[in-house]
């Protein structure tokens, strides 16, 4: 098994991609209008202060010098300090990334669990009333803007009933307050996730259910339920993993609107705020972390896929 070789070669391929991305991001940020040295002082900007900050942050240096300086820092895992808060960037980015995962992973799992019954029921009786209804429901779920669901839930659960906090991340990890503040944003994401997963699962289940080996399984005397559980679902779940990868990429910044609605300090929120504040180094760090994360997720999905599908895992040992 040369899974290790595969992983190594994938990582080697990924390095130039990430390198290219850092250059693109760096150049793109340079054309951002607005001078951070002045912006940061707000309304009381003085030319002296601006000149001082420009020099201090090296904004007067030529582009390539700044890039090399930045890159050598990155390679030592030093992303510099935020122009806005003057705190070291890396710990900030990492804690925001962790918060995004805290929101995203339960949401992905919840969405998938919800999607399985929907997709299965839909696929068993295609074009039935239940199927049409759940297809429509899935499309509606996909079409509702996620920040609006968030807003509606805030209106109902927080303003009307007052049972859950409106926004923010309260308490410490695993505390009741933290869990309470997680509920609404997670549910908002679950709705979209379940809708997407349900649609994918329905179509892959439909495909699998009409495969011949399902007939073999039934001819053995397995009940429809067992056939679905042990034969159809494991086969239909493979495309599902591509979907999980898509969701994970989503979690890496794509949930910015949810994080904005619920003031959830995730990586998307940090990116958005840093772009608004012209906090270049933080934007750069976020972008690099997101791109690296996406790359790792893709790699993980491919490895999982190979692991789950023996036809890929044993490629090359065909019909020995």
């Amino acid at each position, binding site marked *: 098994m040369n899974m290790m070789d595969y992983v190594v070669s994938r990582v080697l391929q990924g390095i130039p991609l990430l390198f290219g991305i850092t250059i693109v991001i760096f150049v793109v940020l340079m054309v951002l209008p607005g001078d951070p040295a002045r912006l940061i002082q707000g309304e009381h900007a003085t030319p002296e202060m601006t000149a001082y900050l420009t020099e201090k942050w090296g904004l007067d240096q030529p582009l390539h010098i700044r890039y090399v300086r930045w890159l050598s820092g990155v390679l030592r895992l030093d992303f510099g300090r935020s122009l806005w808060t003057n705190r070291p960037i890396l710990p900030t980015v990492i804690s925001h990334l962790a918060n995004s995962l805290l929101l995203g992973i339960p949401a992905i799992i919840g969405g998938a669990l919800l999607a399985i019954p929907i997709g299965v029921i839909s696929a068993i009786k295609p074009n039935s009333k239940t199927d049409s209804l759940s297809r429509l429901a899935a499309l509606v779920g996909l079409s509702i803007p996620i920040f609006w669901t968030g807003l509606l839930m805030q209106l109902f659960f927080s303003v009307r009933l007052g049972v859950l906090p409106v926004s923010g991340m309260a308490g410490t990890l695993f505390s009741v307050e933290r869990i309470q503040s997680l509920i609404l944003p997670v549910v908002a994401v679950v709705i979209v996730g379940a809708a997407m997963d349900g649609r994918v699962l329905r179509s892959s289940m439909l495909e699998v259910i009409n495969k011949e080996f399902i007939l073999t399984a039934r001819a*053995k005397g397995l*009940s429809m339920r067992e056939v679905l559980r042990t034969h159809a679902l494991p086969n239909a779940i*493979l495309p599902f993993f591509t979907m999980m990868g898509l969701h994970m990429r989503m979690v890496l910044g794509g949930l910015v609107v949810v994080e904005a609605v619920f003031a959830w300090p995730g990586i998307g929120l940090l990116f958005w705020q840093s772009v608004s504040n012209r906090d270049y180094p933080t934007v750069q760090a976020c972008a690099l972390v997101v791109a690296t994360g996406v790359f790792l997720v893709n790699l993980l999905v491919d490895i999982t896929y190979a692991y789950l599908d023996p036809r890929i895992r044993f490629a090359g040992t065909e019909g020995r």
Partner: protein
Amino acid sequence: MGLTGGDGVRDGDLQESILGLENLRTCFYTQGAVVRAVDGISLEIRSGEIFGLVGESGSGKSVTALSIMRLISSPGEITEGRIIFRGVDLVELSEEEMRRVRGDKISMIFQDPTAFLNPIMKVGKQIAEPLTLHRGLGGSAARSTVLELMGLVGIPDPEQRIDDYPHQLSGGMRQRILIASALACQPDILIADEPTTALDVTIQAQILDLLRELQRELGSSILLITHDLGVIAEMCDRVAVMYGGHIMEVAETESVLGAPQHPYTAALLESLPQLSQSKERLQVIPGNVPSAVTPPPGCRFHPRCSYTEAVCIEKMPSLVQLADGRQVACHRCI
């Protein structure tokens, strides 16, 4: 009338009927049309025999097999008739009761072992499924039985192969896996639907040999479905010829192949190169397989038959037993 002569007397208990189809009719409902894929057939399969069901594609052979398994799913349905297995009408059984018959008392193997095996389940597990389900075998007991079965069906190195996935085996080996899983519970009847069609010629012979050997060893009856008269000649004790959802002729294999009474059987034999060596050219039955949606009136075969008379168009002939014990559905033979 010598009709009472042969039947039931000759071989006594050995010839006891194990499965009887009585006027079985299976229909498919598609876009306003009703297709009678199996149109009122009666058959009897005896204990310990290999019974052949032969016919062109679209004649209703496979639907017959799936009807016996009660695996016809919507838009198809068994609309009429009885399937008597050991005195019990399978049509009347609940789905739950029928599940206990499938894979245990009656099991089935299919045409294309590649498509009919689950690609992401280890072959050992696939063989073990009926054992776990019907015999409650699990863990090491199931494993050792599976190894035994794999040896029985001629898979070399069962220990090596038991944890393989289907794509790691050759086509012939895959068919052996399907056979092993079908025979796991020593069923009374094995239904084999074109078991060799998807295989290489050399492998075909091996699989047929294996089936015959296993049938002798286990004493199961086999319902062998095929379009290949050569396979019938080699394998079957008795054979039924099917055409357009009807049974045309049923008899001992030698008499059907040696002296066919039904014009369709005769035509089918004519089209077979090995058995009609005297002929210079291969004869092809003129005309097409009848439309299943709007079948011809009277005898299904009359548009292609060279002996068609007025009565053939008016009336459907029923299956009648002749003096030598064979049954034929043809106005000419009465």
